[in-house]
């Protein structure tokens, strides 16, 4: 006897008639819901995301179907749970299609049956395994939501209904199979290893009962499937479609580059004050959220109790869009929202402040931790900055403290109230002069590298020490370099992240013009914000340079033996922990160079903080937050300093002037000035360097300056 089974066993002609004719209903609902969403996305601004389709497609498959970003070491339980549900569901779906091909195509049309023999036996075992995965994964998800709930997870009615659907669908499948086998006494039953034992138990029932219960379960199983499919497009279950589409059409530009407002002089709309002001891809972005909460895990505002939760911003926008797009009936009344819409805003309310609050927008440090974690590549920062642009440029609304930043940038080319001719004041602390590009050009000479000092490195007294340290390293290595001096100006990074795109473009253009005048090829900077702007944003306006962060250059100089370190230096002893700056690590992928530079000092023991590398916890200073008061929740910089102290290190190594300022302040805030200090990588290396005259530089740098006088915190701009 060849192993197989009768398809549609115990089902009269009415069964397939109902099955196939009612099939139109879920298709109508699914197609309607998807088309509604496409219609909503199309209301966004145009943007080309159709380039490199092959790369996009492969990446979408890798990240969604193959769960590239979903299963991660840090989220193993949630990731594997999702994988189990996905594999179970997809396998069962394919299994159903296989049966349909046999029953509706190969047998009736070609008279060929493949649903038999070994194929059939393996099929049975695989389907039972898939059913187990679906039920097990869904129950694990319920357990995670109700019993082991992470703080980042919020459970809506929609989540529960979907999981209940999946469990019941799986259970129904096993029930139908067990009831059939209980009557047919299937000799290949053991291959259906879950249903078979139940079939043996059920076989004690009278056959007429078994048949009746089987019919009822068969009909209800397909009806439940249809109801579920009809529900998909109006619930979170849409995410397999939207997530795939979102990864497919994700932004391929450098993650650190914000898109400029094109042709700003002629523009009529600045930023996003309405849904239609976002691009279509951004509207797709907010619709792709699967509520996993991973974007909250390393978000500094969520961790410190501020109103901004990146997931909620996305869901608020998505819910608002659903209301506006009439995802249900077209014109929903006030408060008639999807399960994801938290605030009951209704379609007629304003995007800001009714749907997304200014408090949410201003709290963001643009650290990018949310984007680095999001499994489906939702980009929160461009959404937030887009809305900030609207507030700043259209409404003239921004935190009061920022007014002076804008004024100083406009008048003096830096956020601080210092005249440009003081930019090079720090050079007086060096024994050897530092040439300015203007002099070098006047002499008809060229330099190897331009040292872009940055505003904090130029004017902030604490960060000037880093600048001096780096200049000493460059001089010790014999590098021919120059600075721009009074010709240097802000890159526009703070203005751009705060939302003043007009000012940002002005600053950036001025900087590019200066750099291009001197035909600059290579730039080194100690500021990751300048680094990111020059590397990723200046090319948007014709500024193309090789840009290197000082930690990379220092590491290279050590490796090439161009500077010599004293292993017994006072600074090169004890435990140190390194903080990854967001704009160097997450935005530009540089995690190793600073660590390698520290490792060159064998007396230093590097201790990692719990949140490191791409899960690094922001210092709180990015996105213009350095210049704003932190009035909501607890302080981000203090949270990070405490984490650093918890490693047992006495020294925090920084690689960013923003972080330096925030940490000096944080160390004061937690009262750890006596036992804990922060130094830039350049200060540690310069302080451990054997200088040309043979002296140990430790006294000149961190050892003397930090241990002696109390560190000065950065002054806020006047």
């Amino acid at each position, binding site marked *: 006897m060849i192993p197989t089974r009768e398809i549609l066993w115990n089902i009269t*002609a009415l069964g*397939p*008639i109902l099955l*196939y*004719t009612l*099939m*139109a209903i*879920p*298709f*109508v609902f699914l*197609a*309607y819901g998807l*088309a*509604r969403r496409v*219609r909503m996305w199309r209301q966004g601004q145009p943007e080309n995301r159709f380039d490199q389709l092959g790369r996009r497609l492969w990446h979408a498959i890798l990240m969604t179907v193959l769960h590239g970003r979903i299963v991660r070491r840090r989220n193993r339980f949630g990731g594997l749970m999702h994988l189990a549900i996905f594999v179970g569901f997809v396998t069962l779906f394919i299994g159903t299609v296989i049966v*349909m091909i046999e029953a*509706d195509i190969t047998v*009736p*049309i070609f008279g060929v049956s493949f649903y038999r023999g070994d194929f059939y036996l393996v099929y049975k075992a695989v389907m039972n395994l898939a059913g187990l995965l679906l*039920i097990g994964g869904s129950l694990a998800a*319920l357990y995670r939501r*109700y019993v082991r709930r992470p703080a980042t997870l919020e459970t809506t009615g929609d989540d529960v209904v979907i999981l*209940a*659907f999946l*469990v*019941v669908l799986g*259970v*129904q499948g*096993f*029930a139908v199979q*067990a009831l059939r086998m209980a009557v047919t006494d299937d000799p290949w039953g053991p291959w259906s290893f879950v249903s*078979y*034992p*139940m079939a*043996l*138990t*059920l076989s*004690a*029932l009278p056959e007429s*009962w078994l048949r009746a*219960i089987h019919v009822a*379960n068969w009909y*209800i199983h397909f*009806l439940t499937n249809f*109801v579920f499919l009809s529900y998909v497009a109006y619930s979170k279950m849409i995410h397999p479609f939207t997530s795939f589409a979102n990864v497919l059409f994700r932004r391929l530009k450098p993650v650190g580059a914000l898109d400029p407002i094109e042709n700003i002089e002629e523009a009529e709309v600045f930023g996003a004050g309405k849904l239609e002001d976002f691009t279509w891809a951004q509207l797709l972005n907010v619709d792709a959220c699967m509520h996993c909460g991973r974007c909250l895990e390393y978000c500094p505002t969520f961790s410190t109790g*501020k109103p901004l939760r990146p997931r909620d911003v996305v869901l*608020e926008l998505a819910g608002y869009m659903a209301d506006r797009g*009439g995802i249900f*009936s*077209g*014109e929903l009344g006030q*408060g008639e929202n999807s399960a994801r*819409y938290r*605030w*009951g805003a209704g379609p007629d309310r304003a995007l800001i402040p009714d749907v*997304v*609050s*200014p408090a949410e927008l201003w709290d963001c440090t643009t650290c990018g931790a949310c984007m680095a974690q999001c499994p489906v590549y939702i980009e929160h920062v461009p959404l937030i900055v887009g809305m900030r642009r609207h507030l700043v440029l259209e409404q003239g609304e921004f935190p009061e403290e920022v007014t002076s930043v804008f004024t100083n940038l406009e008048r003096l080319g830096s956020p601080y109230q210092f005249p440009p001719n003081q930019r090079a004041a720090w050079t007086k602390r060096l024994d050897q002069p530092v040439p300015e590009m203007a002099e070098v050009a006047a002499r008809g000479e060229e330099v190897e590298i331009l040292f872009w000092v940055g505003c904090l490195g130029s004017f902030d007294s604490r960060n000037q020490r880093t600048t001096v340290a780096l200049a000493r390293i460059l001089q010790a290595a014999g590098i021919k370099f120059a600075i721009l001096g009074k010709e240097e100006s802000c890159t526009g990074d703070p203005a751009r992240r705060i939302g003043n795109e007009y000012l940002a473009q002005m600053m950036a253009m001025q900087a590019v013009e200066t750099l291009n005048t001197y035909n600059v090829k290579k730039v080194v900077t100690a500021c990751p914000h300048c680094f990111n702007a020059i590397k990723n944003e200046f090319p948007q306006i014709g500024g193309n340079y090789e840009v290197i962060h000082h930690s990379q250059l220092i590491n290279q100089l050590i490796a090439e033996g161009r500077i010599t370190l004293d292993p017994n230096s006072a600074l090169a002893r004890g435990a140190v922990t390194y903080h990854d700056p967001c704009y160097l690590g997450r935005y530009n992928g540089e995690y190793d160079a600073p660590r390698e530079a520290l490792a060159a000092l064998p007396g230093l023991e590097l201790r990692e903080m719990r949140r490191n590398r791409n899960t690094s916890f922001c210092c709180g200073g990015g996105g213009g937050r350095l210049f704003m008061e932190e009035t*909501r*929740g607890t302080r981000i910089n203090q949270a990070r300093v405490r984490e650093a102290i918890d490693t047992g290190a006495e020294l925090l190594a920084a690689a960013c002037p923003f972080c330096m300022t925030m940490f000096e302040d944080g160390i004061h805030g937690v009262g750890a000035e006596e036992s804990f200090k922060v130094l830039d990588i350049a200060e540690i290396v310069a302080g451990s360097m054997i200088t040309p005259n043979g002296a140990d530089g430790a006294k000149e740098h961190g050892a003397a300056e930090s241990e002696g006088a109390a560190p000065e915190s950065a002054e806020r701009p006047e």
Partner: protein
Amino acid sequence: MTKDDAMLTGRYRIASAAAVVLGIALILLSELGGVHEVRVFGAGLISLGGIGLGVLAGLDQPRRAEWLAWVRDRRVALGMIAALVSVAPVVVAFAAALVVLPAAMGEGRSGMALLGGLIALLMLMASVGCFVLAVRAIRRAARPVTPGSPAEAGEEAA
């Protein structure tokens, strides 16, 4: 939408509806007339027609659909009925398995029958548990939405 677009959409809509009707006719022919060769074409036409109708309605201007408003107003009751109907047959099946478990164990292969009873019990618990959770969730989702705006929430947090 231009007049031409509207005309084209109208034609697509008629074609989609016709596909569904023709598909249903083929399914009836297949099952009642025993011409099973046409079943797949019937199913295909119904699916395509359904997708067509859905897409055309979805891409159209939002407009108030009375029947959807009716559904929405009764969503709690409908949700509960759907939950009950979807779970009832499996509950009957697994409960029956548990009732006849002693008899099944007496018929030889008692170990397997016991395992079957255990699986049935677990599935029964999962089904009933999910039913309870779903009903609670449906009732909770029907509550009026949280009053207040994110702006107020921001101030509270401050």
